C-alpha cells in the first residue's frame, strides 16, 4: 500500500523502463524479426512469394486446417475432463492438497513426460501388456492421432483446471442455495447458474490450451511421429531441416495472427458483460 502512494511519476520511471525493456527485447523484437524474415525468399531476395506460396498451396492450407482441428480436439477433450474435475475439486475437503497434486506434473520437463508416454504406449509398454493380458493383443498405439491427442490433452489439463477451479470457488454458496430455493434441481443449477458464472474461467482455460496447442511440435514429433503434420512441425522443419527461414517465418506470422483472432473471440464475452 505504502509503495503505491509514494510512487510519483518520476520515481515510477525505473520500474516502467525495466518493463518496457523486457517487452521490447523479448516480445516486440522477436515478432518484428519474424515478420521481417517472412519477406525473404530462400535466395535472400525481398519478396511476397512466401505468402503467395502459403495461400496457394494445398499442402500449407491442409496443414493449417490440421493444426486447427487437432487444437480443437485437444481443447474439447481437455475441457470435457477438466470442468467436471474442477467442479468435483470444489467439493473436496483438502482442496489445497489436491490442487497441488494437479499442478505438480507441470513442474516436470515436457520432454521427460513425452518419453514416459513413449514407454507406456510402446509395443512392450504397460498398455500393450494389459491389452495382451485381456486377450486383445498388442496394438499400434504410438504415432497415431489418438495417442497424440491424448498426450497433448494430458499435458494441458492443469492449465484448464486451474482457471475453471478458481472461477468456481469464487461463486458465493448463497447463490447456489438461492437457485435451489427457487426450484432448480442440481442439474438446472449447474446449467443455469454455476456454468454461466464460471464462463470466464472456461474462456481463460480455452485460451491457455487452444493457442499453445496450435503450435505444438515436440510431442507432435515424439508421440504423433511423422503422421501428424501441423504448423508447429512445419516451422520446425523449415528452420531446422530445409533451412527455409523465410517460409518458416511466414507460417509463424500466420500463427501469430490466428492467436490474436482466438484471443479476440474468447475475450469477447467478458467485454460484453462489463458493458451491459
Amino acid at each position: 500500500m505504502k509503495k503505491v502512494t509514494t510512487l510519483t511519476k518520476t520515481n515510477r520511471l525505473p520500474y516502467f523502463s525495466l518493463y518496457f525493456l523486457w517487452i521490447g527485447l523479448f516480445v516486440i523484437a522477436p515478432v518484428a524479426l519474424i515478420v521481417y524474415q517472412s519477406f525473404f525468399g530462400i535466395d535472400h531476395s525481398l519478396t511476397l512469394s512466401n505468402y503467395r506460396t502459403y495461400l496457394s498451396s494445398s499442402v500449407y492450407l491442409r496443414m493449417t486446417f490440421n493444426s486447427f482441428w487437432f487444437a480443437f480436439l485437444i481443447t474439447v477433450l481437455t475441457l470435457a475432463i477438466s470442468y467436471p474435475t474442477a467442479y468435483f475439486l470444489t467439493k473436496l475437503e483438502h482442496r489445497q492438497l489436491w490442487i497441488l497434486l494437479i499442478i505438480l506434473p507441470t513442474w516436470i520437463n515436457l520432454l521427460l513426460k513425452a518419453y514416459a508416454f513413449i514407454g507406456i504406449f510402446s509395443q512392450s509398454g504397460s498398455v500393450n501388456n494389459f491389452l495382451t493380458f485381456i486377450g486383445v493383443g498388442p496394438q499400434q498405439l504410438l504415432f497415431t492421432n489418438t495417442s497424440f491427442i491424448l498426450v497433448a490433452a494430458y499435458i494441458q489439463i492443469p492449465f484448464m483446471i486451474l482457471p475453471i477451479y478458481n472461477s468456481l470457488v469464487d461463486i458465493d454458496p448463497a447463490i447456489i442455495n438461492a437457485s435451489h430455493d427457487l426450484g432448480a434441481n442440481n442439474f438446472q443449477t449447474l446449467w443455469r447458474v454455476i456454468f454461466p458464472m464460471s464462463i470466464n474461467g472456461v474462456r481463460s482455460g480455452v485460451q491457455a490450451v487452444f493457442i499453445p496447442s496450435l503450435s505444438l511440435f515436440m510431442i507432435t514429433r515424439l508421440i504423433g511421429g511423422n503422421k501428424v503434420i501441423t504448423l508447429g512441425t512445419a516451422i520446425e522443419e523449415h528452420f531446422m531441416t530445409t533451412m527455409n527461414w523465410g517460409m518458416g517465418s511466414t507460417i509463424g506470422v500466420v500463427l501469430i495472427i490466428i492467436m490474436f483472432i482466438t484471443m479476440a473471440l474468447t475475450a469477447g464475452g467478458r467485454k460484453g458483460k462489463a458493458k451491459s
Partner: protein
Amino acid sequence: MAKTETILELQHVYKYFDDFTALDDINFTLDQGKFYSFLGPSGSGKTTILRTVSGLILADKGKVLFDGQDITNLPAEKRKVNTVFQNYALFPHLNVFDNVAFGLRLKKMAKSEIDDRVVAVLKVIQMDGYENRMISELSGGQQQRVAIARAIVNEPRLLLLDESLSALDQKLRQQMQYELRSLQQRLGITFLFVTHDQEEALAMSDEILVMNDGKIQQSGTPVDIYDEPINHFVANFIGASNIVPGVMVRDYEVAFVGKTFECADAGMRPNEKVEVVLRPEDIDVTTPEQGKLVVHVDSQLFRGDHFEINSHDEDGNQWLIYATNSIEDKDKVGLSFTPNALHVMRFNEDEADFDARLSQYEEGDNAD
C-alpha cells in the same frame, strides 16, 4: 384473512453441527397470512431455523409439517417456500428481469405469462423500468427489492426473510419496514422474518418468537412479549428494563429493596425468589416523601423526546428512568409506579407453565 389455518408446524426439531446443538427442541406453528418474526442475537440459530424450513438443511430430529404434510426430508427445490437471503444472493450474471423470471422459467411457464408476471411484480416493488439493469448497477435498497420480487413472483405460501433489512441504512430501513408490512398484508402471504433488531420485530410483527442458544424462549404478540417477558434474557433483549431480585411474599405482593409492593402477578410459591421487571417509561418521578422508592441520580441525558436518567437506590440497584422533565435535586428523588407496571418473573419457568399461570391469574387485568 378471516379463517386462520396452520400453514407450517415444527415439532421437536433438533439440528446439530458436530457436537454443537444449533437447534434445541424447536416447536412452533405458523398461521396462514400473518407476519412472524424470529428475534434473537447473532448465533442464536435464526438462520438455521429458516434453512430447515426452506429445505437447504434437513432437521436431524423432529418433524417439519407444511399444510399438514410431512416435508422433513423434502429437498428445497420441491418446497412451496421462497427465501429472501441475508445478502440477497441475486444472480450476478443475469439482469433484473431474468433474476425475477428465474423461478417461473423453471416451472416451464408460457413466455407471455412470465413476462406479465415479472412486469406486474416489478411494479409492486416499484422497480418497473429496471428490467435490463445488471445487479451490480443497483443500489442496496434496489437489490433488496429485486430479491423480494424474485421470491414473491413464485407466489409462495410462505416467504422467509433473513435479516433482509440489516444491510440498509437507517432511513431506508424504516421505509422498507412499512413497505414490507403493507406488502405482506396486500399479498396475504405468511411472512417469516428473521432479525436481531428488537425495534424492527416489535414494529412489524403479528407475532414474535424470541430465540437464544438454539431455543425459542418465548412467543407472543409484540405487546405481550414487551409487557410480560418470561425471563431475564427476554426482558433484557427486548427494550430497556430495570431488573431487580425480589421475593414473592404471597399472591399479588412482591418484596424488593427491603419493601413490599402490590403487584399484578400471582400463582407462585410463598416466599419464592423471583426477578422483578420495571420498564423505564413506567416510572414516574416524584418527591422523596411520595415515592415508593428513593434513589440518587447519577446522570441524565436529554434524548429529544425524553430525559434518560441513571440512578441507584440504597441497595445499589441501578434504575433507568425515562422522564419528561429534567431533575433538579439529584440527591434524593422519589420514584412511583402502579402495581400493573411491576412484572414478576420466576426462574426457569417454561413457556407452557408461564402461559397457563398468566391466563389463570391475569384474566381481570386484560382490560388495560
